[in-house]
């Protein structure tokens, strides 16, 4: 059944609900979905969140460049950051480097760009991926760009808190060191999610369902958020956020 919203709109709404008021939030380059989610949260329940978006004029408070966001994160002053991974694995590792072997890769990806630091220095990291398939959610990543679990000698834990996809939201359980199915989005089922995940998920019954995007969420997303986002990601807005 066709949904009255795009998968990206749904993911932005799901992400917006996870943003807490007053947080200092960093969003890297080429991250339109989290940017949409955070701007939406700023219009709703998190008006005092500080949203820092690389590549934006309105949402970039520093004069110099991307090093300032990077070093702010290294000081441990970011409450929330967003990362993606071409692969995400059972142990919470993400891969942004290569598919295949490092020496002779099938595909060479852009690389870490600070994510191996950010994954551990931001207080919470929400992962997102616009496809939920077995090629993304794998037993073991081809290359560990940033580790889900750090060696004992590291003073900081860090790592993932959630992963948001078009099908579901998974939560990282730090005690058990495994992914649990936190909520299934409308239009999907727990079986559907499990069949498209390349490792076993912990599923607690009854399975939580993600509440449908409300009319207010979609209206704001397609008006105020759309206008602000257009200045940063014009192509994304044209293709993925419906006009009001």
């Amino acid at each position, binding site marked *: 059944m066709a949904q009255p919203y795009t998968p990206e709109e749904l993911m932005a709404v799901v992400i917006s609900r996870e943003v807490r008021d007053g947080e200092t939030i960093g969003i890297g380059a080429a991250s339109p979905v989290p940017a949409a989610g955070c701007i939406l949260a700023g219009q709703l329940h998190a008006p005092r969140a500080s949203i820092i978006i690389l590549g934006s004029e309105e949402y970039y408070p520093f*004069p*110099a*460049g*991307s*090093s300032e966001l*990077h*070093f702010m994160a*290294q000081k441990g002053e970011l409450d929330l950051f967003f990362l993606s991974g071409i692969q995400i694995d059972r142990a919470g*590792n993400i891969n942004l*480097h290569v598919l295949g072997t*490092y020496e002779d890769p099938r595909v060479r990806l852009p690389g*870490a760009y*600070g994510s*191996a*630091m*950010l*994954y*551990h*220095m931001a207080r919470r990291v929400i992962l997102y991926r616009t496809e939920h398939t077995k090629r993304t959610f794998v037993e073991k990543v081809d*290359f*560990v*760009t*940033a*580790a889900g*679990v*750090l*060696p004992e*000698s*590291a*003073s*900081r834990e*860090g790592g993932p808190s959630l992963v948001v996809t078009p099908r579901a939201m998974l939560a990282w359980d730090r005690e058990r060191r495994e992914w649990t199915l936190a909520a299934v989005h409308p239009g999907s089922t727990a079986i559907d999610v499990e069949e498209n995940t390349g490792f076993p998920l912990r599923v607690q019954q009854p399975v939580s369902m993600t509440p449908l995007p409300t009319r207010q969420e979609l209206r704001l997303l397609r008006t105020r958020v759309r206008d602000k986002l257009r200045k940063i990601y014009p192509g994304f807005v044209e293709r993925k956020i419906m006009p009001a």
Partner: protein
Amino acid sequence: MYSMVQAGSMGAPFVAVRGLLGGDLLKHRPDLRVVMNPFQERDAVVVAPPIRPDVAVFHAARADRLGNAITLGERRDDLMLARAARRVVVTAEEIVEKELKPGAAGTFLPAIDVDQVVCVPGGAHPAGCTKRYGCDRIHLGEYLEAAKDGSTFKAYLEKYVFGPRDHRAYLSRVGFRPRKKRGQDAWRNPIPPKS
């Protein structure tokens, strides 16, 4: 990377960075090493040597004959990179006679950090130059297509890099039209510049 360039700009012998622990990059990068923090218990950290590029090249909107230059956009990271590099070359859209001073708009590269200035109008191509011309998307598309394969990439290099006898010939090959008025420079596929 930022930390390594910053260490280079500061003359620091090495830099300690957070994160990276547990990742595969440490297996493939002998320049990234793990040590115990001498000032804190139970705190493994990665250390890395400074980066000092032999040459850094910046494209500026304007430069003067002393070497002062203004690159557009607020990117003072440029200054960090200039100070890390052993030699700094500035290419500029125009060379002005009047001495440039640090001003409000853009990023100021002072002459003391600059070794050479070259007048290269259209020098940001195929990227854009703020307020002057936008990026040449048709050319970027051609590049992306050519870069998929060794032989097509070689043909690309021949056509655009080795083929043209000088910069003027390059500009004519990519279809650059010099501006009549500021902000009206255009490629064959004009995209309005960022203001």
